[in-house]
């Protein structure tokens, strides 16, 4: 039994939010459905692919409480097609289809019993942390892309989150690059705690933090197997990755022989332009960093065999020796595109040692990229 009404806009937005957690290739068929529960004064929507679960509450008028699961794609596409206005949902009995009416539209959708829907984990105890939404968003943006996309080393598909005092350090590495971002917490954790959160879950979280102003609350369960993120009207639960994350501190070079300060936008433009020519030859862009009293430069070049080559230059304040180093253009573009501020520092040593990028004037971010070994 269920009888409820809500606005088409709210339902459409809610379905879009939980839709990201619907299983695409479902082992368990019911996970391609969305759970719809009319309880209290709200309509609860939930979906899970067993790795993450997203729950969302929307305002509704509930005449009769009830729960059902409906095929995600069908119900979402139908609701999106409706005019804005009031939607009525009614389920006369558990075995009958749900009737959806809106203006002069009416549909009947057969569901599956909510009792068979995988339980969405509840996390009531554990370590709770609060973070400013804007800072978290930026931090995830600057770190998550550096995680590995393939599963050969599962820990590397995650982002290492280290909570210490009032500070959170996020780190990701895929074996070719490392991104580390520090951010401050709104509260203090009593005890140091470190977990590995799937990078995919954080990417989803970033899509969910949109118009949030109040802090994002996150709780790690005592077994350190799950984490819940609480936003306004939305909760996301994610499994945590078990294993040992590499000790990344030792991967960050402690010294350099060449240090160049460059305008971020110029550097990104020159790298993007070189990457067009680097598409053929394994994405190689060559950087030649040339010091000159006060007005040095970085020459960024790429060539495609039998096709052509290009060279771009950007002004740089260079300290130290002239140096040559080649990178995969994708790795360079990835990091330059997420850095904040106007200027970036590039530190290099030899052409086979890692390059380090940092924003100028902030010591909260460091990015390490392994170079490509090429013939000069």
């Amino acid at each position, binding site marked *: 039994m269920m009888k409820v009404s809500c606005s088409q806009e709210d339902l459409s937005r809610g379905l879009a939010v939980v839709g990201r957690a619907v299983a695409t290739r479902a082992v368990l068929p019911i996970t391609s459905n969305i759970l719809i529960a009319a309880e209290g004064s709200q309509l609860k929507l939930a979906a899970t692919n067993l790795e993450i679960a997203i729950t969302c509450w929307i305002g509704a008028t509930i005449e009769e409480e009830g729960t059902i699961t409906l095929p995600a794609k069908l119900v979402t596409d139908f609701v999106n097609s409706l005019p804005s206005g009031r939607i009525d949902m009614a389920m006369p009995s558990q075995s009958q289809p749900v009737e959806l009416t809106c203006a002069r539209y009416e549909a009947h959708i057969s569901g599956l019993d909510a009792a068979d829907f995988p339980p969405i984990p509840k996390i009531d105890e554990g370590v709770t942390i609060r973070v400013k939404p804007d800072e978290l968003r930026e931090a995830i943006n600057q770190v998550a892309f550096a995680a590995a996309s*393939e599963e050969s080393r599962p820990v590397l598909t995650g982002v290492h989150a280290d909570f210490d005092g009032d500070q959170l350090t996020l780190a990701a*590495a895929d*074996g*070719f*690059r*490392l991104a580390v971002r520090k951010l401050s917490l709104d509260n203090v954790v009593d005890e140091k705690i470190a977990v590995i959160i799937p990078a995919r879950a954080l990417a989803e979280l970033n899509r969910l933090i949109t118009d949030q102003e109040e802090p994002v609350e996150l709780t790690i369960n005592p077994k350190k197997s799950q984490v819940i993120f609480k936003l306004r009207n939305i909760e996301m639960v994610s499994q945590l990755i078990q294993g040992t994350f*590499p000790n990344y501190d030792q*991967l960050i070079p402690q010294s350099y022989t060449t240090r160049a300060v460059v305008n971020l936008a110029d550097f990104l433009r020159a790298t993007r332009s070189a990457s067009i020519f680097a598409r053929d*030859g*394994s994405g*190689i862009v060559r950087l030649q960093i040339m010091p000159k009293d006060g007005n040095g430069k970085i020459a960024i070049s790429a060539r495609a*065999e*039998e096709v052509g080559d290009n060279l771009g230059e950007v002004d740089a304040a260079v300290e130290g020796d002239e140096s040559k180093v*080649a990178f*995969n253009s994708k790795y360079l573009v990835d990091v330059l595109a997420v850095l904040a501020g106007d200027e970036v520092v590039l530190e290099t040593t030899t052409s*086979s040692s*890692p390059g380090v990028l940092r924003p100028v004037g902030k010591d909260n971010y460091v990015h*390490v990229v*392994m*170079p*490509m*070994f*090429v*013939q000069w």
Partner: protein
Amino acid sequence: MFFYKGLRMPRILHIDLDAFFVSVEQVVNPDLRDKPVVVGGDPGGRGVVACASYEARVYGLRAGMSLAVAQRLCPHAIFLRGNFYRYRDASAGLRDILAEFTPDIEPLGLEEAFLDLTGFEPLYGPVRKTALQIKRRIREELGLTASIGIANSKVVSKVASDLCKPDGLVEVLSGEEPLFLAPLPVAKLPCVGSKTESALRRIGITTIGELARLPLSFLKQSFGVHGEIMHRYASGIDGRRLAPPAPPKSISRETTFGEDTSDRVFLNATLHYLGERVGATLRSQEKQAKCVTLKLRYADFESITRSRTLKEATDTDRTIYEVGQYLLEKALERRAALVRLIGVGVSNLTEGRQLKMFDPGTERLERLNGAIDRIRGRYGFTAIEVGSTLPLRGMFSIEDGRYRLETPSLSR
């Protein structure tokens, strides 16, 4: 402009070393001079004539003929297996000499090349004189003879050099190309193969002159695009520029067994050996490969190739061998039968190597590969070996520090 007109007349030189493999053998062993000599292998074996001396050609021996037939035609011929490394060295000698005359060279195989000497004459005198100098240097420094054709295009210079073999020199003056080609049989044109030749003969065309007089529309209709090329070449028109040597797109090694085999240990050992040879070449070119290909030919001549694309480009022997072995397993699962030929190759070559953060193993492997390459460079391939190629020891002889496979490729 009028005064410089002559400067821009194309002058293309085609050079071809005479009876190359045999001539190199005769330099190494002068006793072989003036005798019917065949390079290709043991007449009891399954190979073909790779090269026959002019004395042997008198008996009708030709490249590509089976060795058994060759022996029947010329029973007293001396049959040699040949040695690629000697040919490669002679070829390098040729290239060094040519490079002293012009950088504009298009090598064709080991023993042939086109040289572009356009605009040469005002500076260095007649091209003919230069050609004679080249021939002299080759004779004095390599002990070999060469035939040279000079003309305004690649196709005419090649026809010319072919016409004056051995040890000849023909220059076709500018404007006289059609006259020069006209009386020659159509088969002398590089674009006319045996099928085209017989098709032309059926319509009564036997000379290049007759071919050139056929209407273009008729040739296009009968032979398509190829007809158009024939029409141009027969008229002595060929605007192709020299193609400088391009980097290879793939590297492969293969061998035909003396006897068909299904012995896995032996197949794996051969595969490993060939894979190491591929890897060494790859590393010497400072390239990485993203694709490994296995080639198998069964005893009934069914030939298959199987490829696998790697996640990351590699230049290590072990990876090439492991992927090759995986493909071999798969192939033999599909069809386990006697194998006649096995080969392994790499393609999708890339430059540069992405260095890794957590992978000291790769670096170790690289140093190991480098050390093995250096040892083999100095003391020969068999100076250091992996266990799995050891079975080859009992089966093949070692020559110059390398295994003598049954039918080694003579041109690489």
